[in-house]
């Protein structure tokens, strides 16, 4: 299965040490890896090719001899190119001088148009506007009902055909569209969002219908709604819709899954219009303007650091976290601290989700069945300990173990294992925190960690830290965070070093 791109690059660049510039052949090899990575992310083959060419140009002149880590340098170049491709100008929603501002939603069946229409209505409301939702999907049973339910949730009116017409299934969406502008004016709504039925791009009849809707309403913005899971076909779809409707932008949905979202790149490339919004969850609030840099990392399989940092900020007390990290690296980390940190972690959502966003986590780990109920077990064990035991687990003897096991509904072996592992991990962390990285070869724990970290990770020796005395050869998280914050493109890049 897919390994992080960085891992693959490590292999190539391992052979290149001290050679400075990349040869033609080296570049070809790098580009092949990039190609595979992009194809696995569902970027369209055609788009991959043109992208490869641009990266080649960027790489040919590049002097990598002085780069600390040529692999990272190359990934940075690729990432930058991706950000450029995905980004460019961002959509600026301006409002019509003579309201209403009309927004038309189009796309395949099941891409999420109706839900997105609801979300968009909410977004416009948050911008101080008064949207009107128009249900022009008279095809799918109960589509109108779905839009009405969503509209109730965001408190926005819905305009559609009369109920008996909807039920009869003979309603004409073009007619609905024709009337909706007058209705908006009558109700004093300044934004109109038209939800259309899903249609196949090759269905000439339905494409003609949506064209007529567009003609009747003269939308200021026509958005194509694209599912992040879409494969190679995204290009054909985008081309067809663009040819019919002349799109103004794209809305990417279902980004909360684990699809790498390469379709976005394909669509952007083909249509040449920006990706305006991204939908990142089922809640109506999970919807915002699109951030190209985040998706770029994701397409390359590098995790979503910025989102992770944002989430962390929502739940973590900065100073508290800092203290904990310091304690961890200095070996003063107790079970009590661990419990606290674990609870913070839990607030950020399921562990698997967090791991998924963490760059450099090998796929096997990410895909591992991590059930958050395991956290509950660990928690139960720790909670069954006295304060003294938490501070110094070495005092736990057989009798205490038995008590803890009883208290937590586990068994003494599990308690023992937890304590044993905790000690071992703690010792390891302490070593990370210290200067050397003389890893004792062959210990079970070390091997285990190696596995988790992927190849490149352990090589550099001590690394992740807060600040202060610890030597950090290739990454400083704080700096990274700052950079990400400053939206300096490419900030999220030094990922190989980050993979704890």
């Amino acid at each position, binding site marked *: 299965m897919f390994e992080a791109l960085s891992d693959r690059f490590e292999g190539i660049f391992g052979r290149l040490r001290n050679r400075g510039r990349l040869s033609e052949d080296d570049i070809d090899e790098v580009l092949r890896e990039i190609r595979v990575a992009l194809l696995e992310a569902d970027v369209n083959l055609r788009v991959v090719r043109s992208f490869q060419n641009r990266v080649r140009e960027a790489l040919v002149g590049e002097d990598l001899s002085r780069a600390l880590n040529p692999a990272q340098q190359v990934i940075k170049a690729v990432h930058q190119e991706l950000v450029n491709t995905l980004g460019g100008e961002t959509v600026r929603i301006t409002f019509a001088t003579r309201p209403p501002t009309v927004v038309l939603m189009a796309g395949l069946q099941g891409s999420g148009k109706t839900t997105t229409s609801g979300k968009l209505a909410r977004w416009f409301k948050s911008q101080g506007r008064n949207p009107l939702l128009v249900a022009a999907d008279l095809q799918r049973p109960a589509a109108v009902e779905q839009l009405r339910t969503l509209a109730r949730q965001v408190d926005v009116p819905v305009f559609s055909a009369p109920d008996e017409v909807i039920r009869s299934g003979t309603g004409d969406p073009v007619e609905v569209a024709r009337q909706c502008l007058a209705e908006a004016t009558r109700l004093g709504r300044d934004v109109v969002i038209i939800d259309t039925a899903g249609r196949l791009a090759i269905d000439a009849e339905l494409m003609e219908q949506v064209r007529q809707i567009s003609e009747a309403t003269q939308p200021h913005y026509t958005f194509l709604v694209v599912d992040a899971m879409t494969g190679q076909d995204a290009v054909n779809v985008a081309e067809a819709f663009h040819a019919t409707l002349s799109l103004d932008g794209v809305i990417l949905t279902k980004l909360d899954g684990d699809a790498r979202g390469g*379709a976005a790149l394909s669509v952007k490339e083909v249509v040449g219009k920006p990706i305006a919004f991204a939908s990142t969850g089922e809640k109506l609030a999970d919807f915002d303007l699109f951030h190209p840099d985040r998706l770029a990392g994701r397409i390359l399989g590098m995790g979503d650091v910025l989102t992770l940092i944002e989430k962390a900020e929502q739940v973590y007390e900065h100073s508290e976290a800092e203290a904990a990290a310091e304690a961890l690296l200095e070996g003063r980390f107790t079970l009590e601290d661990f419990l606290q940190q674990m609870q913070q972690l839990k607030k950020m959502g399921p562990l698997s989700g967090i791991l998924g966003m963490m760059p450099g986590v090998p796929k096997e780990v990410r895909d591992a069945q991590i059930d958050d109920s395991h956290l509950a077990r660990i928690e139960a064990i720790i909670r069954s300990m006295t304060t003294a035991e938490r501070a110094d687990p070495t005092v736990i003897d057989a009798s205490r173990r038995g008590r803890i096991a009883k208290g937590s509904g586990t068994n003494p072996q599990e308690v023992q294992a937890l304590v044993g592992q905790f000690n071992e991990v703690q010792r390891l962390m302490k070593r990370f925190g210290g200067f050397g990285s003389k890893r004792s070869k062959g210990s079970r724990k070390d091997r285990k960690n190696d596995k988790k970290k992927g190849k490149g990770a352990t090589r550099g020796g001590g690394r992740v830290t807060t600040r202060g005395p610890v030597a950090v050869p290739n990454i400083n998280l704080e700096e990274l965070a700052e950079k990400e914050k400053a939206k300096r493109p490419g900030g999220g890049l030094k990922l190989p070093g980050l993979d704890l």
Partner: protein
Amino acid sequence: MQLAVIALVALLVLGLLAAGVVVVRHRSKVVAAPRQRRVSGPPTPAAPAVTQPRTSPHVAPAPSEPDAQAGVEVLAEGPVAEPAAPAPVVELVEPFEVAPALRPSFRDRLSKARDAIAGSFRAILARTSIDADTWDELEEALIKADVGVELTMELLDTLRLRAKDESITEPDRLLDALKAQLKARLAGADRSLRLEAGAPNVWLFVGVNGVGKTTTIGKVGHQQAEQGRSVLMAAGDTFRAAAAEQLETWAERAGADFVRGAEGGDPSSVVFDGVQRAAARGVELVLADTAGRLHTKSNLMDELTKVRRVAAREPGRLTEVLLVLDAVTGQNGLVQAQQFTQATELTGVVLTKLDGSAKGGIVLAIEARLGIPVKLVGLGEAIGDLVEFDPDEFVDALFD
């Protein structure tokens, strides 16, 4: 710095997991996770209200032979014919013969799509000898069909050996060999839908959002009802706005029984009620809808495991768990199948929306890697457009 702590704690937890402190238990043991994604309204886990089918006049469950022995006859003609005994595979050969004239062929349906994308294969066939470009074009075609890089490479490696062995030199023969290789891979899988006599059979439909689960159930229900089987649809999607209404419309059209729950209610209880009701009324087939969910949401996947468990409980008999997959899905489809089968032990895949320009090649990877066969294919919006998967036509269409 927060990130470091998170990473370390996560690692610590992982270390503990890996060390086996917390034995990874079977998923089904952890269904406690509360449903957390409600957007509005308080959770109403009340017992689902059973709606009387509005179409009672023509619901009359399969007037002719609703009794158990009918099973035998049914088996011979139905698309879903498979008795408990594994023997009569032969009888499965002719599915959906109900209206043979109406059965759309891949070719008819797909020709529309194929016009839209000029066949890259004409170029291959135009060549006189096999060269690097030929191989590139084959690779391209497979990748463009969403087969995935890994499987594509595997297929082509095998093909290279074969080409050498059989000293194939013409591009068109090479293409034929590739097709044959793909068809051979797909041959032999049991693609029949299981229906056992006696207890109400339950077919559970799962999948991510927007793939067409509800529509698929509507069509399957309709077809089954047309074949004289009594059908009940259980609106297990209690989450999406108006999903139950959508299914109800289908149930009305199909003249099927219909059971729904309170919006936001527990889907397991809806399925439970559906099975109970089916058992009480002697209904043969329960089609259970579920809310679309991303396979990454562990609490929702746990919920699905529970639904599965409830559906399998007496008096019901869970005979199919079908993953509904949109043909437009790319490489993520494999991950979806993996996760859904882990949660619910899939018995098959329904590939929808194949009448578009997408080719649905990811199902090849799903069959190759997970051994889950494609059973049904959606070729259009009409009820009759849901047909049994035909490997040969599917493979031919990949290269059209």
